[in-house]
């Protein structure tokens, strides 16, 4: 292959890679949309896994105990959101001190809000302290 053709081929390849990874959208997201908003878009704020709400709570509250999350997604081990509240300072044996509920309306039968102290509420997402 001639040198000029190779240059052309390299440029085409670069364009193909840029197209394959949707580079311009990625660049736009990275420069225009903040990290928290990208997390919200991916995992949901007060919906889906609810990681956006978890991050919001972590930023705005000084959580000094073990935190758990319950969302309304059909459980398949991959969407429980547990990874987002994991804290290496607390083991599985430690009792839960705080609870985040995503989409309470769908989980009404499982949780009675009267048993908890409501620390924050947004739509039907709750940040609760577990009463001793």
């Amino acid at each position, binding site marked *: 292959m001639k040198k000029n053709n190779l240059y052309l081929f390299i440029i085409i390849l670069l364009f193909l*890679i840029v197209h*394959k*990874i949707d580079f311009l959208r*990625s660049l736009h997201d990275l420069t225009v949309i903040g990290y928290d908003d990208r997390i919200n878009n*991916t995992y949901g704020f007060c919906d889906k896994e609810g990681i956006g709400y978890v991050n919001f709570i972590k930023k705005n509250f000084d959580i000094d105990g073990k935190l758990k999350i319950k969302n309304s997604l059909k459980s398949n081990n991959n969407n429980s959101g547990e990874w987002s509240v994991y804290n*290496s300072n607390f083991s599985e044996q430690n009792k839960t001190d705080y609870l985040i509920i995503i989409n309470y309306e769908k989980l009404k039968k499982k949780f009675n809000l009267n048993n908890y102290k409501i620390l924050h509420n947004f739509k039907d997402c709750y940040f609760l302290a577990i009463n001793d």
Partner: protein
Amino acid sequence: MIEILQILLFFFIFILLLFIPFNIFSSLNLPSNIDIVEKTSLNLVINLNLLLFLSFLPLSIQSIQPIVILSYLLVLIISYRKNFDLIFVFFKSISPLFIIFFLLAINISSEIFLGWDAKFFYYIKSLFFYEEKTIFDLYKFEHSMWHPHYGSYLWGFFWTLSFVDNEHFGRLFYLFLFCYSFFAVSKINKKQLINNTIFLILIFLFYEYNFFSGLQEILIFSFLVLISKYFFLFLKNNKDEMFLLYLIILFSNLLIWIKSEGIVYFFILLILLLIQNKISIKRRLFLSALFISFYLLKLVIYDISNLENGQKILYDIEYILNLDFNLIFYKLSNIVVWFFYYLSNNIFLSIFIFLIFYEKLFVKEKNRINTSYFNILIIYSFFVILFIISAYIFREMEIEYAIRTTMDRLLMTASGFFVYPSIKLLNKKLYR
């Protein structure tokens, strides 16, 4: 914008690992017939093994990181004080690596979602390292027994280094290793332009975000890509054999610390080394002892840090002994069907198989690929297929679920060894 700056900064931090401990422009410490890319590979693998060693210590990343960074910068300045002009030339030669790393890093930073295993295992482990814990704390995580810790340690190490406090910056190191491995193996032609074209083709064919969603397979894949190249050069006879042998040994050692199946590749590589006639019996014995010592070291380290091996649960001896013929046949039929399905979906395996058939059927014997290397590839394929079959037959899990959730990744990992021969064969056909 700050994330883009962080990506640029991280590229230069990762590149630092290629420059130290040996001066890549000097022929004082390294054999003169070794090219610069192979010297960077040696530096990289030494640094990766050093980080592995640091991960065994009861010291948090935060406590050792400043010492590591400062000493690296110091060594860089001392070692390269007379070669700063050459560094600029080198940077020019690796500009394709930089461009691709930048493009893909932007993609990873915008996608950010984590894969299944990543959420369940690897992210949590990296969080331990990020939160100033050590290998000796990992036992507190109930799922820590399923996979080794090293991939998560690397994730945690570079996550901690990031001034933008986001976990995905730790994962960018996986991307760097992947890009570097493709860049290193694409150096097969005298013309740089052709090499760069090959590098871009490889990236275009292979890159998918999912591989970088925190899964560890991409690390084993990248190391196998490099090991395969050094096996070829080792068999070619025209390079410093010991140097290449060191590279193969050091990269192989990393495999056992990344994923459980890394042990299989580790021992397959040992077998491939042991069947080489050009290695003396004495050296083969030494290699066996060395590989077994590496493996025993892993058992000892995990025993000291109270980390159990979870694979014992998946592979129960009683279940294996009670397997009847009907069940084995049922499992085997599923394995074969899905194996061919995933084989056809894997770009490098498909290309490799096509080229091998082409080579056997249409190429004259004198023009064929190096016979010893060809045998290595066949023996590697045999052991990988044997591993896949036995892994699924002996696993106590519903077969279709087990296959559909893991086989594509298993084949992807294994295909790393075929990247170099595939491009070598293609290059031979196109530019003969």
